[in-house]
Each structure stands twice: as structure tokens, then as C-alpha cells.
């Protein structure tokens, strides 16, 4: 492992931890502005985390150790996910530890843990949330994998760093298969991050919530970790999307200057992405829970069509 590799790895993790709540705040702020509200400010998620960490944790009487473990596990999974995604640089020593398939597995570990934790207390909402989360997961996971299959067929690799390097170096051309994959990926991202057409991050209306139902029994530092992990997940998904479909500005090995330039490039891309997310959320209405499988099945089919297009057109 080279020094620069170690440095860029560390930078990637720290950037993710710091920027993730900011991205969340940015999206929420734009959502408020687009809805003609004044909004709490982009720094609100930090204040929220600080507040929650200060509070004591109130735990249900018969919560098992699985319930107490889950927030840390989810947080750990998301930190690792942010560490292996080429956000700033493709020179990541941790990247060979997990390729795209393992990354999907990593998200699945987090999902299974949080669903099991939600079932642990034995409340009606907890198990309902767990069921819905797994329902979304079982359709979103193969769709996400199929997106990665398309990109890996193009780049002849399932390693994220090799994929991004290949996609960044190819001559500029619109790959029809990538267009399908990109569309599928954004649909999956909306579902996986509990954003509006699928779930509403701001709701506490019992019968419609998914993510909120899962974490209903958490409070204090546990809730803070889960919220932070949710922010990291949004950050991770945004970065995967940016790295695969807009891979410009990402540094490569032995390029310290590019690494410094990569930070503003990432922030710029994330700012635009966050604005678009808020715009889409504002323009669309939340769908009924049984429309969600149709939505995700569409995403799955689009990703598979992307693969087929790759074989038919060779691009």
C-alpha cells in the first residue's frame, strides 16, 4: 500500500462522514425552498446529530442485544461502503476487499440487520416496517446488481475502481446500455434511500411509513447513528451514480494534484445531484405501497434491458 493510497483512502472516509449530513441538509433545504418554505438551513442535520448524541437512549424493556448492536452494524456497513466507492480517487487500498457484487451484499447486510432489529421489540409497526423494507429490498437488490452487471460487462470488471477508470477513459460517447442502467439506478436509489415516490423521509403517518417504522423504537445515540448511516447511504448512492455515469474529475493513482481538484468536483456534482433529487421529490407524489413493486420491477426490467442492449449493440 502506497502512502498516497493510504491518504486518499483516509480522505475518502473522512469526506464521506463529514459531507453526508451536509448533503442531507442541502436536499432538505432545497425541498423546503421549492415548496415555498424557509427551511431549517443546510447545517440542520449536524445539529440534529449533536442533539441526539447528547440525549440518553431509551430502550424497550425486552430489547435484545441484537437491537442494540444493529445501529453500530448499520453504521459500520455504510462507512465501509463509502470507503470502497471511488468518490474522490480510484487509488483506494480497501477497494479490492469488495467489488460491486460485495457492495450490494454490504447494503443487504445493513438492511437485514435493521429489519431484524425492527422485529425485535415485537410492535405492530416494527414488523410492518421490516416486511416493507424487505419487500423493497428484494426487488431493489437484483435491480442494482443488474445495473452493476451492465457496467461490468462494458468495463470487463466487477471491481468498482476498474469500472470507474474504464468509464472515465473511454472516448466520450453515449452508451445506450448505460442510459438504461442509469435510469434504473436512479429509480433504485429513490427506493433504497426512502425518498419520495417510494417513501417519505418526513412522514410519521403510521400506515405509509417504511424507513421511519423501522427505526421507531430507537432514540438517543442509537437513532443518531442510524440517521447518520442513512445520510451516508444517500451519499454512497449518489457517489456510485456520479462515479459510474459522470466519472469526470475523479483522481487516479499517483496524482496528488488531481486529488485536491477532485474535492471541489465532487462537491459541485453532489450539489447539482442534491438539487435534482429535491426537485424530483417535490414534483412527484408518494405512491401506494403496492405500486412500489411495479416501480421497482420497472427498474429491474430497465436494468436487464440495459444488459440486453449491451449485447445487441455491443455498447
Amino acid at each position, binding site marked *: 500500500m502506497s502512502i498516497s493510497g493510504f491518504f486518499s483512502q483516509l480522505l475518502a472516509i473522512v469526506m464521506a462522514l463529514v459531507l453526508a449530513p451536509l448533503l442531507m441538509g442541502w436536499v432538505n433545504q432545497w425541498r423546503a425552498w421549492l415548496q415555498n418554505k424557509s427551511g431549517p438551513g443546510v447545517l440542520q442535520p449536524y445539529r440534529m446529530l449533536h442533539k441526539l448524541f447528547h440525549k440518553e437512549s431509551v430502550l424497550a424493556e425486552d430489547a435484545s442485544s441484537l437491537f442494540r448492536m444493529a445501529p453500530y452494524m448499520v453504521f459500520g456497513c455504510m462507512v465501509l461502503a463509502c470507503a470502497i466507492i471511488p468518490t474522490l480517487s480510484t487509488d483506494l487500498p480497501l477497494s479490492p476487499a469488495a467489488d460491486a*457484487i460485495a457492495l450490494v451484499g454490504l447494503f443487504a447486510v445493513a438492511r437485514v440487520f435493521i429489519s431484524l432489529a425492527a422485529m425485535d421489540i415485537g*410492535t405492530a409497526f416494527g414488523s410492518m416496517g421490516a416486511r416493507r423494507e424487505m419487500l423493497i429490498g428484494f426487488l431493489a437488490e437484483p435491480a442494482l446488481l443488474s445495473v452493476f452487471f451492465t457496467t461490468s460487462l462494458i468495463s470487463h470488471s466487477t471491481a468498482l475502481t476498474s469500472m470507474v477508470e474504464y468509464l472515465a477513459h473511454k472516448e466520450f460517447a453515449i452508451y445506450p446500455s448505460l442510459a438504461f442502467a442509469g435510469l434504473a439506478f436512479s429509480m433504485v436509489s429513490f427506493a433504497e434511500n426512502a425518498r419520495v415516490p417510494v417513501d417519505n423521509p418526513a412522514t410519521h403517518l403510521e400506515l405509509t411509513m417504511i424507513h421511519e417504522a423501522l427505526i421507531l423504537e430507537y432514540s438517543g445515540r442509537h437513532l443518531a447513528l442510524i440517521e447518520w448511516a442513512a445520510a451516508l447511504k444517500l451519499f454512497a448512492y449518489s457517489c456510485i451514480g456520479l462515479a459510474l455515469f459522470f466519472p469526470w474529475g475523479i483522481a487516479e493513482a499517483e496524482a496528488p494534484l488531481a486529488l485536491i481538484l477532485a474535492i471541489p468536483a465532487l462537491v459541485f456534482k453532489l450539489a447539482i445531484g442534491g438539487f435534482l433529487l429535491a426537485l424530483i421529490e417535490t414534483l412527484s407524489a408518494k405512491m401506494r405501497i403496492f405500486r412500489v413493486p411495479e416501480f421497482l420491477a420497472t427498474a429491474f426490467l430497465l436494468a436487464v434491458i440495459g444488459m440486453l442492449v449491451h449485447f445487441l449493440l455491443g455498447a
Partner: protein
Amino acid sequence: MMLNWLSIDYVLLVIALWLGIGVAGVFALRRFRFVARVLFPLGGVGCLALAGAVLPMFGSTPDIAILPLGLPQLPFHLRLDGLSAFFLVLIGAVGAGISMFAAGYFRNGAGTPPGLLCLEYHVFLASMVLVVLADDAYAFMVAWETMALSSFFLVTANHKLPEVRQAGFLYLLIAHVGAIAILLCFGVLQANSGDYTFANMRAQSLSPAWASIAFILAVLGFGAKAGMLPLHVWLPEAHPAAPSPVSALMSGVMLKTAIYGLLRISFDLLDVHVWWWGGLLLALGLATAVFGVVFATVQTDMKRLLAYSSIENIGLLLAGIGLALIFHAYRMSALTALALTAVLYHAVSHAFFKSVLFLGTGSVLHATGERNLGRLGGLIRYMPWTAWLVLVGVFASSGLPPFSGFVAEWLLLQSFLFTPGLPDSFLNMFIPIVAAVIALVAALAGYAMVKFFGVIFLGQPREEKLKQARDAGFWEKGGMLWLAGWCIVLGLFPNLLIRLIDPVTVSLVGAGLGRSTTESNWLFLAPSSIERASFAPLLFLLGITAGCLIAFALVRVFYHGRLRRSPPWDCGHPWQNARMQDTAEGFGQPIRQIFSPFFRLKRHLPTPADSAPSYHVEVSDHFWHWLYLPVARGIEFLAALVGRLQQGRISIYLLYSFLTLLFMLFLVQR
């Protein structure tokens, strides 16, 4: 003198030990303590010895033995080569854990006495070893039938219950339909030479048409044993009926002997290969996998759920073999080796995790007397050991990293993604779609497993008596710990097992994953190169653990660790009870709705006027109504026709004999 023994001799010694244990069990028919505390652990030691004895066999020349048993002119030929050794290690390693569990599991009670169970159990083990060792069709069929019969008796251990007897008969019937197909397959393979040794079958070269017939017969025969669609119906009946260690042994190990048989015939005995064989097996495997997993998610009996999950895993194995056959037909040996590695890895991984899951259900059954998911819940508080060990199995079964199930899934997906390069562009296009389906199956398996674990172990106990449940005893814990431990070890150090698989694939198809097994990159699993695809489970686990620990430490340093216990909040709803949680039916409801064409639903909804409203839903399998019941009716009809002949009067029977004699004379005359 002892030093000159071959591995195969030690294996035969272990078989003799098992048979001896079985006989001792018969003499100690109801001396339960002796059977449980001495005989079963001794059998487990035999399993370990078996695995140890064949370890030196990988990569060396096969051992051959000829036993003077059997017919005159036709002794038992036995042969221990890499493929057999691999499956023997599987039998030994998994059998050791199950035997240990069985030492604490079997009790005196209704049904077969423990001594007799001990005999059946060890004969079952010995016959599975002989199936894998057999080197001629005769020995193979004898061992295969012994395996079917001994497992039939084990399944019907609780034979006082009518549904257990029914399950046993269904199992026996389908096992024999399969056995006929295998027998016919051997008949085709020997190509009229009259010599039934495998050596002769290897030497024959069949025309593609005959080879295809042999292959289809093998798929039918071994598919019936493995639970391939549409011959799967016995599995969800037999597994819940059998005692849990037997379910574990059948699901974890016996199904794998069918995979062994299929591999032996298609890669070793047949020398022609046609690409559509692989396509056929791939399609069958995928159909089986999707069917199995969708049904697993809607089950309400915990052992039936696991049985359907076994069907799913068998489907994945068959799909992997299908892919390997496609590659093999096009002579792409490196890719064949990759697909075969995935298959063998998954076979071992499934053996471990499915055994631990079945054993866990056994412990739950003992502690609570319930198999119905609707009456369980909250057991993680009363049975923590069982719960956490089963959780390992659940993670492995859902294909989550860094457990063994994920490695197999990863290898399988890699072998699909490497596909571009097949000469047939139609196949090229088809295969990534298959990969997408496999991803769907894996994700649904996660759904089924979350349901399985969540409904049994999490939440509040749905019955008052569950609060008295006691955790598994020493032997049961030990058995599960051994199996769950291997799920973790194989997940973290995949190269350990791949090092054993390599010589097997080299001997079968002439290539292996050599690169990933070299000492230099023991940490990384990289079938071709690290740039192409890599996975380092240990780093992966360290990454997550470091994330968790740092988060934990930072929270404690900068903030605090204060904690208060209170009643659950539940959005402020004050009156909540265990009945308000999702039931097993409730958890499966979205799947029932999305995949409704898969099921035959019988639903009873109460009307508003009902004084005692009840809600009832019954999910059954289309194949019963489409295939089995019509066949059964047809046979009943034929039997009734034949029955007309039986008039019950001796004069009429004498007339039949007379007519038959006349007919014979007529034939002889001509």
C-alpha cells in the same frame, strides 16, 4: 504393516465402525443413555476420521478397492478419486456436527426406539459414503437404495402419526421413480457391452443421441432425489415429518449425493457434450430456484420453510452445473472450472448452513413443542445460544457477506459475468439475464430468512408457554457450534476450500482456479485477477468491525453511554400485545400478492355477520393439481381396469392360467 494402508481402507474401516455402532444400537434398543452418550458421539468421531482420512487424496492418484461382496462375477468396485474425496469430506464434516447434535436430541418416546434409530442413522451415513465411493453401477444402485430405505425409516421415526406415514410413502415413491431412471441411465451408459463398471462406461463413446438420453435419465433420476421441479413434492412433506437431525442430514448431505451423481455422470462417465444439455439444466435449475424461494417465503411451518429453501438451493446448484456444462461443451475449461468451483462451494456451504438451520428448528421444537411459526416468537431471550447460532445460518443462507453463502453466490455470479465470449450469440445474450434471475432468487432468500428468524426468535412470544423455553443442551449446542463455525470460517477464508476444489476441477475438466489458491494472495478471492474481480472477506469483516468499534468508542468518548429501559413506544399506542405483530402469513403477504400466479390459494374471509369470525388462507402447489393428481387418477383408473380381472373365483383364475399356457404354447410353436 498399518502404514501401508490406503485412504480407501480407512474409509472402509469407518464404514465398518458405523455398522458396528448400528448393531450395538440394536442390542441396546431402549438403553437410551448408552445410545445417546456413547454411540452417537462415537459415530461423530467416525465422521471426523472419515474427513481426515480422505484429505491426502486431493490431487493424488485414485485409490481402488474391490470388495468380494455382491454377485458372483460382479464384486463391488470402489474408487476414491478427487470428486469422491471432496464429497466424503462434506459428509464427514457435516455428519460430525449432526451426530453430536443427535447425541443430545433423540429421546425415549413415541415411535422408533433410540437403538433402532441409531442403526438406521449409521446405515444411512454408511450408504451415503458407499454411493460416493461406488465404481460400478451395481454397487452404486445397492448403496443408493440402502440410502433411500434407511432414510425412509428415519423419516417415519414417528410412524404413529398418519401424516408422517404419508410423507414417508411419498418420499419412497419418488425415490424409486428416480432410482428407475438412474438404473436405465446406467443401462444406456454401458452401451451393450454388458460390463457395468464405471471404468468401462468411461471407455465407451456413445453417439450424441444416446448420450443425450443417458443425460436426461440422469437428470430425472438425480433430480428426483435432489428435489428438482417437478419432482420436488416429497421434500416439503418429508423434512417436517423427520426428526430434526435426520432432516439436517437429508437436506444437508443426502441431496448432495444427487449432485455428486449428476457431476459424476455428466463430467466423468459421459465423454460427449452437447450445449443444450447445459441449457436444459440451467432452465430447470432456475425454475426450481425461483419456485422454491417464492414458496419458502409464504410457509407457516418452520421446517417446511427450510425444505423449500433447500429446493431453491438445489435449483441454484443445478443452474451452476448447467452453466458449467455449456462452457464444457464449448471447451472453455477455465470458465467450466469457475462454474464448477461455484457449484462445489455452494454444495458445501449449503450443507453447513442448512444443517445448522434444521438443527436449530430441532432445538426450538424440543423447547417449545411447536413447529408452527404462528405460535412462536421472542425466543432469542429464552434460547440465546440457539438464536445466535441459527442467526449465523440465516446470514449464510441469505447470501450475506462475509458468510459462506455469499462466497458461493459471488463465484456463481462471476461465472455468469465472465460469459461473453461464447461462440453462440443467442446464449451470450441469454446468460446475463439468468444472472439477474439468480440475483432475484438470492434477494428473495434473504426475505424468507428474515421471516424465518424474525418470527421465531424476535418479537414477543406469541404463546404464554414459550416463556418457559429452555436453551439447547451441551451436545446440541456443540453440534450447532461446529456447523455454524464452519459457515463463518468458509466465509472468511474461501481459499481454504478452493484449495480442495482445485484438484477436483482439474481432474474433471483439466483446469482450476490455481491463481487464487497460491500462497501469495490468500487474503483475496480473485478468480482471474484483482483488477477483474476480487473479494477479501477478512478485510471486509475488519472494515465493518472497525467502523462499529470506532463509532462505539467515539460515542463513549465525546458523549456518554446512558441508557434507560422503558415500555416500547410503538407510536404511542398503549395497548399492544403479541397478537399485533406480523404473523408468518402477514410477513409473506406481499409475496403472495406479487407472485400470486405461483400459488393455488384457498382463502376463507369472514363476512360482517359472522359471530365467530375467522380468517384462513391455504397455499398449495399447482403441481399437485396439474401433474400428480391427474397421474394418480390415471393410475387408479388403470388399476380399476386391471381389477376387473380379479373375480375372486378359483375357476376363473384357473381359466386365466389355462389361457396363458395356451398362449405360451402358441408362441413356442411359432
